[in-house]
């Protein structure tokens, strides 16, 4: 894919992302109600959440600390900050204003390094409260238009959010995907959020524009309702093409907010700049400025766990893989890298462990329910050639199903033993004799014929043969043919 991300001609795509994440606090940003998803509607409420007359917000210190973790992980400066009121009237916002940060956010001027090394600038990361959840009933597709009534759940109202605003440094849909994945991995690693896009605890808005080299940035559109990493890419690709087509057709891109429709794969106008709200921001008089002390910032910084990039680098070195290989990326993303390393500490083979964990532990969390010592035993069995890769896979399945088990004992119980080379060679010779046609084709260069011969060897050995070894033997025999 080109840097222009499939856009025709020399069009350049410019993307900035605004990511909202729900913080993993016990209580809400400004009250003691639980911050918990999935409870009975309107049960995690109190006078502050309900916006009752006379109620006042009190800032949750833990939320500030998590927001600081986010800022420091994104190489931001953490500074003294204030809260503003963003005034807008909507039924799931009971005070009729959102408490947010405006011109003095907690975190400013950082960057996120993509796995390939590119730095995407972070303009700011600020704290704000979430709104409640509206469910529109009776219309089409859950939209408010045409609905007969709306249900309001205020459990989410007041849940702490951090909005992370990138600079317009992203130049392709792929970079946007990488940015979101990497940000997500960081947020999970530092315990700031569970960052699940599908559940809405991480929400991405994309500011998209296109322009030609040497010209100013184009008019941007903000894309909302992007609910997965995959749709981030799809929505940006669609929107960029739409804008290019408009401009090439002599039309002008209007600055507007657009809604991504996952079903038809298009973006649709939500509101134009003209009917944008005037939020009448002013300093929230019910709160005081927050000035985290140098000591506090240092303490939070020092307590940060290793970030995904560092962990990938470490795992890559320990397993002999590259840091952006699929196995390393996905195992670190799942938080299972420490497990792979533990297998190594127990005398196992980390390279094999990486493969096992990547292949078989997708359903497991960061702490797989299998003793690492058992996996260590299995890697050694395979590395020493005592079982084949296929057999190891079967043993692994057995270990996982039973929550552990001694690999050697399972191998013995299953009658697994890798054939020694001599025994295997005689089986191979026998199969070549039986499958003369296939052998001739293979020797003539028909790669497909190899499959038939290997399959027959496997059958004859009841799967005890090492596939790689069989292939090597066949190639050797082909080369040394009279």
């Amino acid at each position, binding site marked *: 894919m080109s840097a222009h991300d499939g856009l025709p001609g020399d069009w350049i795509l410019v993307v900035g992302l605004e990511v909202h994440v729900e913080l993993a606090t016990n209580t809400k940003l400004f009250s003691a109600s639980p911050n918990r998803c999935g409870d009975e509607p309107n049960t995690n409420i109190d006078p502050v959440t309900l916006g009752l007359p*006379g109620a006042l917000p*009190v800032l949750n210190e833990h939320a500030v600390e998590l927001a600081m973790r986010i800022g420091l992980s994104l190489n931001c400066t953490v500074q003294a900050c204030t809260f503003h009121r963003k005034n807008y009237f909507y*039924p799931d916002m009971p005070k*009729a204003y959102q408490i947010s940060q405006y011109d003095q956010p907690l975190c400013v001027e950082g960057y996120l390094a993509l796995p390939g090394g590119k730095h995407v600038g972070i303009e700011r990361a600020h704290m704000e409260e979430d709104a409640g959840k509206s469910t529109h009933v009776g219309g089409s597709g859950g939209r408010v238009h045409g609905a007969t009534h709306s249900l309001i759940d205020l459990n989410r109202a007041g849940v702490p959010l951090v909005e992370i605003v990138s600079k317009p440094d992203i130049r392709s849909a792929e970079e946007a995907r990488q940015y979101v994945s990497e940000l997500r991995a960081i947020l999970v690693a530092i315990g700031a959020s569970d960052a699940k896009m599908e559940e809405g605890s991480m929400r991405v808005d994309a500011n998209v524009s296109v322009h030609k080299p040497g010209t100013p940035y184009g008019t941007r559109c903000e894309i909302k309702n992007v609910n997965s990493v995959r749709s981030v890419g799809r929505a940006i690709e669609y929107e960029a093409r739409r804008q290019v087509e408009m401009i090439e057709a002599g039309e002008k891109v209007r600055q507007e907010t657009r809604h991504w429709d996952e079903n038809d794969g298009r973006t649709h106008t939500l509101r134009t700049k003209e009917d944008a709200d005037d939020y*009448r*921001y*002013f300093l929230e008089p*019910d*709160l005081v400025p927050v000035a985290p002390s140098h000591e506090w910032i240092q303490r939070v910084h020092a307590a940060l766990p290793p970030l995904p990039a560092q962990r990938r680098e470490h795992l890559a070195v320990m397993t002999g893989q590259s840091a952006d290989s699929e196995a390393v990326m996905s195992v670190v993303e799942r938080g299972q890298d420490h497990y792979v390393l533990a297998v190594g500490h127990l005398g196992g083979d980390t390279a094999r462990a990486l493969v096992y964990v990547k292949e078989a532990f997708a359903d497991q969390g960061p702490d797989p329910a299998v003793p690492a010592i058992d996996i260590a035993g299995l890697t050694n069995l395979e590395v020493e050639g005592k079982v084949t890769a296929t057999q190891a896979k079967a043993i692994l399945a057995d270990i996982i199903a039973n929550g552990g088990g001694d690999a050697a004992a399972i191998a013995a119980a299953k009658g697994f033993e890798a054939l020694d080379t001599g025994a295997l060679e005689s089986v191979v010779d026998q199969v070549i004799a039986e499958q003369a046609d296939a052998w001739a084709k293979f020797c003539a260069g028909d790669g497909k014929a190899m499959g038939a011969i290997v399959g027959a060897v496997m059958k004859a050995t009841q799967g005890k043969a090492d596939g790689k070894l069989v292939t090597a033997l066949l190639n050797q025999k082909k080369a040394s043919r009279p």
Partner: protein
Amino acid sequence: MGIAETVAQVKSGAVKADFLFEQKLALIASRYTEIHAFNHVMADEARAAAVAVDEAVARGDDPGPLAGVTVALKDNMCTRGVPTTCSSKILEGWRPPYDGTVVSTLKTSGAIAIGKTNLDEFAMGSSTENSAFGPTRNPLDTNRVPGGSSGGSAASVAAGFSDVALGSDTGGSIRQPAALCGVVGVKPTYGYVSRYGLVAFASSLDQIGPFTTSVADAALMLDVIGGHDPLDSTSIPQAHPSLVDVLGQGVEGLRIGRITDLPEGADPDVQERLEVAFDALRAQGATIVDVQVPAFTFGLTAYYLIAPAEASSNLARYDGVRYGLRVEAADTNAMYGATREAGFGDEVKRRIMLGTYALSAGYYDAYYGKALKVRRLIHDDFDRAYQQADVLLTPTSPSVAFEIGSKGDNPLAMYLCDTYTIPTNLAGHPGMSVPYGTGAHGLPVGVQVLAGTLQEPTMFRVAASLERSLA
């Protein structure tokens, strides 16, 4: 009898709290509609509280520092299960599910919350004529206003309906009615008393304070209701020294400031009483010094941008959905409109519009932004003045109580009532009105004592000295 004496008698068992309460209730009943101090009398709750105090005394338990003291609450303070209306139709029928911090503090102190007092709707006004439930009348002359917006609380104390009352002061709403009703009224330093449970008008200016018949009573009330509240982020964290303890310290050596560039407009009778006050303090050993507070004169205009701006935000939540009034209409948007149309009075609507405009894109810098700069100037000018003087003395109100209806058609004339009180709120400083004799028509005149942030002890020393000079 001061409330300290009442508390002592109740604690000793010499007088029953229940007896004192029933006396007050009878007095309220005798002038209920004539004065209209109350929106709601909490007869049952108050009786139960009084009985509980007497039972505690009988058991030998400590009934609290305000045992048996009857308190009237401005009807913008949330009382659990008891209607809280802000004298607005929009909140009619709402019973808060929680007590504000001052209310729960009073309860645990043994005070008897006797009722909810009338006010200008959402505390917007200076006469208590602006109530959706009709005006309160001044107990000293029922053709006249009690001042506002805490007119019901001032009238309650002036008429003896309650020993004390609480009000809220955003631009003078405690001090001005105190002056017009001849009682003591204190607006403490912003953050001295928790605002949790006070229905917001202008959050950066609102402050709760007491109405009492004596300076000593006010000191005791503030000693009880003052202090840090973790539920109010703007409440001052450090502990306050006792004000009761400083009352006898006199003014010897204190510098009393006279603001030479004070905006004109005070009536001669009011001005005359202020001069008598200066003389009295001088006679007690204070020095009178001339100071200037140039930005004082801009207070009113800055206030009428900042307070409405905050109000426009604070009042946007009243939409008929969750509590209070709902006027049914064809669809939700029409319901919002109809509810607000019927629920808010003219003055409230006027200020919501003013405030919305002042904060709007394109106008913010010229209006709200400039008002904030003026606020800063006022603060700085006061700070300079307080380097030369320990307290400042001004009139509280430009005039004695005026007749009901006399300013009805002229909002600006009404706004001018608060010329001398507003700058204090903008600076966040304390101020109090001390009744100081009478002026025209034999009506009371109040003298205002102003001081710097957390200088309540000095302010109370001066107030107590003024009070003594009249005895």
